[in-house]
């Protein structure tokens, strides 16, 4: 009896200690996980390995936009979570650690996993605990992972998603640069740009009415110094994900055509694509060659999200203009279209304007029309701007200052656009103004005179000749930053 008992014990111990998979002979390696937007280097192995992945859940305060604090729930301390790269056929030993200071249980559903819950049930982890499961990466492709603990929408809405790339046994061709970008929608109590600590709004989430739609966890995560970088002649591969939780992305790079898109992160590429759909809980791999320099803007082309909710990133490309591919502006001269329309916008024809609208000040009417056509979608109808996004022009200390003291700067702002931090009426803005193109000297003079003398602003009028001089000065100065939007 005693013998059989101890034999059973030994057997039980052997069973308990046996690896979950018969993978003991595979070489063991620890996966390198990277923070956004960087991707681990391609795997050069030509046979399967057992790959150890350790991912820690951290609940922490971060910035959703400049001056906007939010409690993010993260995989590895960043939104999106760390990028995981394994190879098709690898056996992955996955550890999920839930930091003891966290308040909530979490888990992970990796869409690359074949098995119930994608690992969710096996990794359900209380704070201060860790769990493990093992899976075989059967299908190559780019997959979202996310938390699936109830209420799942809130866990995702707070930033619990990332990407795992299962590199095919025949890898994609080598490129010069790889990055990853993950879109997400966020739901705060305050509107876009409302400063301070912002709590999660369950109502907004259920209504699918986000206050923020951003790339890589915050508005401005890929702008200014943090823009993606490239050089003319290089090839780029972007691993794109969409954590959601609600919105489907119309992913587009302004001024680029994707040479290849592995739609939905799958195996077969489509070629020559302008905009690709990235489903919530889905992905896409896009590739393009950098043919000429400039700043290329990454957007969700469901475009109000980009203008008003933050889904804007940048790729800055250096290495010289390729005139063969893109010339820049070659010509800008007056165009007198239909007489009745022209009379309303051309200030150098006051007689006609006065005759048709004797009570209106001709410059003001023409200026207003130019303003409505070129500026009002951002700065709003009466120059009031949008708090946190677009600075006001009405009673603007910033505008009055440059319109009176640095008129070259004002003209440069309109012609070349403007990025970086500015302070307007005591409030900080850190957005992107795209260049306003297609305005002749006379129109621009009318427009700037209008704007700098409306809504409580005061500055001397601009003449056509003054604009011409300033335009020449601007155009001979340093090259433009952003490329014009499509």
């Amino acid at each position: 009896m005693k013998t059989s008992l101890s034999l059973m014990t030994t057997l039980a111990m052997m069973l308990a200690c046996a690896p979950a998979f018969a993978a003991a002979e595979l070489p063991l390696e620890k996966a390198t996980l990277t923070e956004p937007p960087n991707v681990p280097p391609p795997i050069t192995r030509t046979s399967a390995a057992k790959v150890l992945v350790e991912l820690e859940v951290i609940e922490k305060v971060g910035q959703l936009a400049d001056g906007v604090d939010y409690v993010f729930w993260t995989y590895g301390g960043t939104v999106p979570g760390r990028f995981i790269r394994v190879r098709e056929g690898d056996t992955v030993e996955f550890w999920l650690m839930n930091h003891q200071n966290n308040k909530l249980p979490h888990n992970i559903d990796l869409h690359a996993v074949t098995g119930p819950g994608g690992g969710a049930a096996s990794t359900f982890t209380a704070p201060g605990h860790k769990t493990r499961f093992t899976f075989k990466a059967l299908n190559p492709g780019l997959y979202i992972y996310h938390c699936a603990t109830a209420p799942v929408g809130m866990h995702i809405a707070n930033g619990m998603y990332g990407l795992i790339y299962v590199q095919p046994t025949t890898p994609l061709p080598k490129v010069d640069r790889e990055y990853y970008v993950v879109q997400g929608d966020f739901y705060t109590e305050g509107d876009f740009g409302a400063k301070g600590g912002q709590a999660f709004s369950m109502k907004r989430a259920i209504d699918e009415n986000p206050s923020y739609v951003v790339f890589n966890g915050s508005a401005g995560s890929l702008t200014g110094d943090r823009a993606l970088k490239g050089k003319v002649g290089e090839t780029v591969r972007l691993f794109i994900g969409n954590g959601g939780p609600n919105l489907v992305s119309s992913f587009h790079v302004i001024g680029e055509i994707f040479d290849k898109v592995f739609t939905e992160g799958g195996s077969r590429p489509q070629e020559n694509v302008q905009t690709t759909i990235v489903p919530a809980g889905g992905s896409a791999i896009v590739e393009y060659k950098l043919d000429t320099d400039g700043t290329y803007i990454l957007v969700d082309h469901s475009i109000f999200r980009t203008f008003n909710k933050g889904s804007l990133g940048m790729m800055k490309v250096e290495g010289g203009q390729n005139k063969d591919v893109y010339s820049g502006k070659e010509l800008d001269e007056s165009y007198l279209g239909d007489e009745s329309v022209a009379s309303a916008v051309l200030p150098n024809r006051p007689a006609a304007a006065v005759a048709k609208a004797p009570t209106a000040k001709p410059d003001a009417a023409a200026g207003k029309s130019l303003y409505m056509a070129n500026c009002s979608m951002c700065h709003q109808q009466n120059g009031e701007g949008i708090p946190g996004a677009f600075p006001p022009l009405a009673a603007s200390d910033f505008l009055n200052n440059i319109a009176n003291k640095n008129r070259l700067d004002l003209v440069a702002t309109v012609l070349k656009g403007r990025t970086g931090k500015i302070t307007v009426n005591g409030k900080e803005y850190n957005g992107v103004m795209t260049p306003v193109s297609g305005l002749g000297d006379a129109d621009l003079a009318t427009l700037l005179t209008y704007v700098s003398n409306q809504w409580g602003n005061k500055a001397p009028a601009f003449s056509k000749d003054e604009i011409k001089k300033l335009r020449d000065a601007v155009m001979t100065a340093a090259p433009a930053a952003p490329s014009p939007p499509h």
Partner: protein
Amino acid sequence: MWILAALSLVIAADRPVRVAIPAGRFAPLFGLDTGQRDFAVSAFAIDARLVSNAEFAAFLRARPDLGKGRISSALADECYLSHWEGATLPPGSSAAPVVSVSWFAAQAYCEWRGARLPSTLEWEYVAAASETDRDASRDPAFVARILGWYSRPTGKDLPGESHRNVYGVYDLHQRVWEWTLDFNGAFNTADNRQDGDKIAGMFCGGGAIGSARREDYAAFMRYALRGSLSARSTLASLGFRCAASTTETR
């Protein structure tokens, strides 16, 4: 007799009183059968306050076998009372709720006091009350306040703020998570291996199936947390209070 009376006076002053909770009907987030609207809840009594470090230390003097470093690893994980310095309380923590205790230790404490842990139904029934309403589970402001607490990391310090609900029970929310008698009852039967479907139902969209109030995210989080525990688990944000069926109390 006078000794007993004096003793009970001391206890009343030193230890939180138990509050009588009237019988009623309640629809918890999980557990209702199809077509069932609610459960009957019998009258019971529940501690007005969370069990404190000092009270738990007193218990351990009577049950040294459950002391830190002594307790069997079958009854508590390695983080049991990890906020205590050895067997003694950290300075100034006597009145703070005891945390990092396992279900076994919490239930043993309650039994030592002639009570038990509250059932999940009882806990949710009494915790649905706000400062002014017995059932505030659909009051958006109340739910949002609780949700706000769940959304923040635990950190090192427990908040000192105290909330008293309409029954006179303190700090059911916004302080620590609490053990219940049947904490894993929503998901697990006695044989865990047969619960595959139930557990899977808690993840992803499946979590909404079978819930009484899909908008009650705070309750989802409580059920999710309870479901992540085993009886030997301890958390730095998990404490308890005791309850008793009214017929059991004197």
